[in-house]
């Protein structure tokens, strides 16, 4: 064998060994079939459609965060207007990104404009059209983008923490890349995502506020009316569940008048844990403790308000409003008819932190374990079936050269699987279809070469020359055909998600590996065969 051929053989052998290592790892000898199988199944990462599990796409309502920022700005502008004694008619939020200030005292317009320019740099402002001395503040687009990005980042982090706290195997939480406000959550093995969905979606906003008025009202309107149409400054009406045993409004909802600024929020928590309820046996409660900084506020507050009620507000719903019996420094309890699981989940959510905006589910796909097992079985059967069919045909049609093609094909598949393992790519059911397609389309390269060789042999060329010309002429066509399929696969990868992406990945890797096996390896085998056979003998093709 000439030396070039020898090096080719060594190279091919190294490739095979690398693949075997990628697929099976370094086994200790002696090793059993089941150990190999185990290693192999650990290294190939299966997609949800083969493993079973849930796939969720959710949308973060970023507009809420933007609107919140707008509201906070309205408050701050109002405060500034009062401090600087600028008379004005009305200030209100027009929509998420616009604030209208009407009837600013003409004499003070200059001061007003200066104030806005200096203190509210995130806003553009201009005289409002159609208004006498009115101004329209518009949130700068760059600020809107920044709020959007921050909200998404915080939402992602919070959801990540919550999912991890649930203790599920290998969850995925990531941006979908499809919309600016979409997050993808994948939970392998979770056939029923109901609990996970509830945990993800829970707002988790905890606020402790003083109850300003001992009365509860059966509707917001009634509460407003009881105060002459205008709530006392610094208060707001918040709904909650009716707690009594008799009477009460039909929908079970009552309204409390609370201080608008909470004394303690969820961010001040140091820990939260579920425990059996002390007051209501059979139920559970969530006990929390506060950070030192918060405790230094909470202690004096409770001491100063003994005898008054304090509302525990969760996601803008009053959970309970116990009476403050004595000074409490740094702990509290949330009660409310919780089961062990719901107390667990609430504690989890509080520890992970509140979501910056609410969540809406856009897509939910779950695959049960029996279907997953079925899919693997069908996929493997189809792959082996098509492989055998193709192999039989190749050997019959091309005789010894057919065996050459079979070897190239098998090596192609081995490289494909090993590449999947090395890249940590996910194998999905369409991915298995991609493997089957690689078998079918990959053979094309060999066919192109062999047919050309046959033509050249028919035209009278010698074996070596025919093989040379065959590979040469077919090379460009092989490249051309691979490029077109690769272009399609590239678009599929860009546009697709999950299973479709898995298909694109296997197809691309399969075709690239095919270039190697059908051109380099097949050629090497031919060359080796040519050196060994009699020059005058007919090439078995």
């Amino acid at each position, binding site marked *: 064998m000439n030396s070039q051929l020898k090096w080719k053989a060594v190279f091919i052998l190294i490739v095979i060994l690398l693949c075997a290592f990628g697929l099976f790892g370094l086994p200790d000898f002696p090793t059993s079939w089941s150990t190999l199988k185990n290693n192999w199944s650990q290294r190939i990462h299966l997609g949800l459609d083969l493993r079973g599990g849930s796939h969720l796409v959710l949308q973060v309502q970023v507009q809420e965060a933007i609107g919140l920022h707008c509201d906070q700005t309205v408050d701050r502008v109002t405060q500034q207007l009062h401090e600087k004694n600028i008379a004005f008619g009305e200030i209100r939020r027009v929509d998420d990104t616009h604030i209208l200030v009407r009837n600013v005292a003409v004499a003070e317009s200059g001061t007003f404009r200066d104030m806005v320019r200096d203190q509210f740099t995130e806003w553009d402002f201009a005289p409002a059209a159609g208004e006498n001395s009115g101004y329209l503040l518009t949130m700068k687009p760059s600020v809107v983008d920044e709020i959007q990005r921050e909200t998404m980042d915080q939402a992602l982090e919070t959801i990540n923490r919550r999912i991890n706290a649930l203790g599920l195997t290998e969850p995925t939480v990531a941006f979908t890349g499809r919309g600016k406000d979409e997050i993808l959550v994948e939970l392998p093995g979770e056939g029923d995502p109901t609990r996970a*969905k509830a945990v993800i979606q829970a707002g988790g906003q905890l606020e402790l506020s003083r109850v300003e008025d001992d009365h509860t009202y059966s509707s917001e309107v009634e509460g407003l009316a009881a105060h002459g149409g205008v709530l006392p400054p610094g208060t707001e009406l918040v709904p909650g569940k009716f707690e009594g045993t008799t009477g009460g409004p039909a929908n079970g909802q009552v309204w409390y008048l609370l201080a608008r600024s909470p004394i303690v929020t969820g961010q001040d928590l140091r820990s939260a844990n579920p425990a059996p309820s002390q007051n209501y046996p059979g139920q559970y409660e969530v006990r929390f403790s506060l950070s030192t900084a918060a405790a230094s506020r909470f202690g004096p507050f409770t001491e100063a308000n003994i005898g008054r009620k304090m509302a525990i507000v969760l996601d803008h719903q009053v959970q309970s409003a116990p009476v403050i019996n004595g000074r409490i420094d740094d702990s509290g309890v949330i009660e409310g008819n919780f089961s062990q699981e719901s107390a667990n989940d609430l504690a989890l959510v509080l520890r992970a932190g509140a979501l910056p905006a609410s969540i809406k589910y856009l897509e939910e796909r779950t695959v049960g374990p029996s279907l997953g097992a079925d899919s693997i*079985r069908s996929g493997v059967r189809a792959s082996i079936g098509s492989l055998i069919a193709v192999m039989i045909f190749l050997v019959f049609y091309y005789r010894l050269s057919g065996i050459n093609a079979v070897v190239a094909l098998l090596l192609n598949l081995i490289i494909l699987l090993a590449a999947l393992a090395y890249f940590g790519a996910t194998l999905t059911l369409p991915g298995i279809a991609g493997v089957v397609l690689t078998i079918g389309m990959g053979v094309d390269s060999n066919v192109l070469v062999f047919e050309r060789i046959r033509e050249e042999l028919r035209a009278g060329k010698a074996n070596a020359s025919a093989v040379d010309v065959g590979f040469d002429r077919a090379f460009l066509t092989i490249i051309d055909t691979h490029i077109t399929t*690769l*272009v399609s696969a590239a678009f599929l990868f860009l546009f697709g998600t999950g299973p479709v992406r898995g298909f694109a990945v296997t197809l691309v890797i399969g075709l690239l590996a095919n270039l190697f096996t059908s051109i380099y390896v097949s050629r090497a085998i031919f060359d080796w065969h040519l050196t060994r056979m009699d020059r005058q003998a007919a090439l078995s093709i």
Partner: protein
Amino acid sequence: MEFFRGVNLDWMGKAKFFVALSLTLLLIGGISIYREKGLRYGIDFKGGTDVYVGFAGPPPIDQLRQGLTAQGLGDSQIQTISESGNSGAHDVVIALERTEEGDQALDAGKQAILTALQKTLGTGGASGLPDFNSISTLALADSLTRKDPLGLGPVGGPRYTQLAKNLTDSRDKDHGGILTSFDELNNVDGADTRVLTSLRDSFSLGSFTIRNVEIVGPKVGAQLRRQAIYATLYALAGMLVYIAFRFEWVYGAAAVVAVFHDVLITLGFFSLFHYEISLTVIAALLTLVGYSMNDTIVIFDRVRENLRLMRREPLAVIVNRSINQTLSRTILTSGLTFITVLVLFLMGGRVLRSFSFAMVVGVVVGTYSSFGIAAPIVVVWHKFRGERPPAGSGSAAEKRLAAAGRR
């Protein structure tokens, strides 16, 4: 062994028949689409809820329908799916459409369907025991650890977790997700009589299992539809550019027309055979686009080579020769690819069914469109571009060749 030796057919002469065949197929497909009032979009593009339910025996359709109507889901559709070989022999899909974006939770439909199923088929039924066929591995491990049939005490956790996994694996992989009797678990590693008795006491066996659920919101559906169309158009444009660059622009145009024709015929067949168009079907269509281009490129490659070798011949003859020369390769490759996708169609399971159908139809149509549509387009174009002399006469033929050979 060799199939095609010395073939010498007049492909371009028969071009009329190919075009007629194509038009017929397009017409049939078009009529079918018209009668179905558009393409059958699957849930990926339409939005809605699909719940696939498996049964151990023939599914009680009427009971199901009653139960669904009682839950207010009277407009749901129930369809049986049969699968042989795997555990899907008695599967059913319950489909709900969803047109508007309400305040309703995304999975309201699914929850309603599940409630209907449980009420109708009475999981737990009289005994009120939880359903073993629907329980997850974790929950089963929890239950076993609490009941502790093997008397392992508090350290039994890991063993019970493994046992739970073995039990659910056996249920899902060996028995298609539905057990009709706990005796079917006799062979499971670690499941002795104490365990089985404990299971019998703690669980009932429901008659159905949820195979999978797909819920897509309507806005997402529209978004995915748009993306699918863009992806296809971009891919076609990309290939047009690539081929125009490698050959002449008219070759690129001819190839794109051929591929477009392939996609349309495939869609027509989908409508004809009542298959739904899902995301994986779009993947199949895009793959077809690439595959059909391949075939066309192989022929064009040979045409280009022959143009250099056979300078005196008219283009039609050259194209004929090229097709004949590559016929072997074309039939073989399509044949082999066809065999592989046919195996996929027959043995690949329910989930891949529409994908493999698209591939089966596409491979056949894609191959035929290379010599039936793309090649004739090139020939006809050059015939009209060049002067109008009879074939084979000197100077005009040379002009045509020069025009065709120019790159």
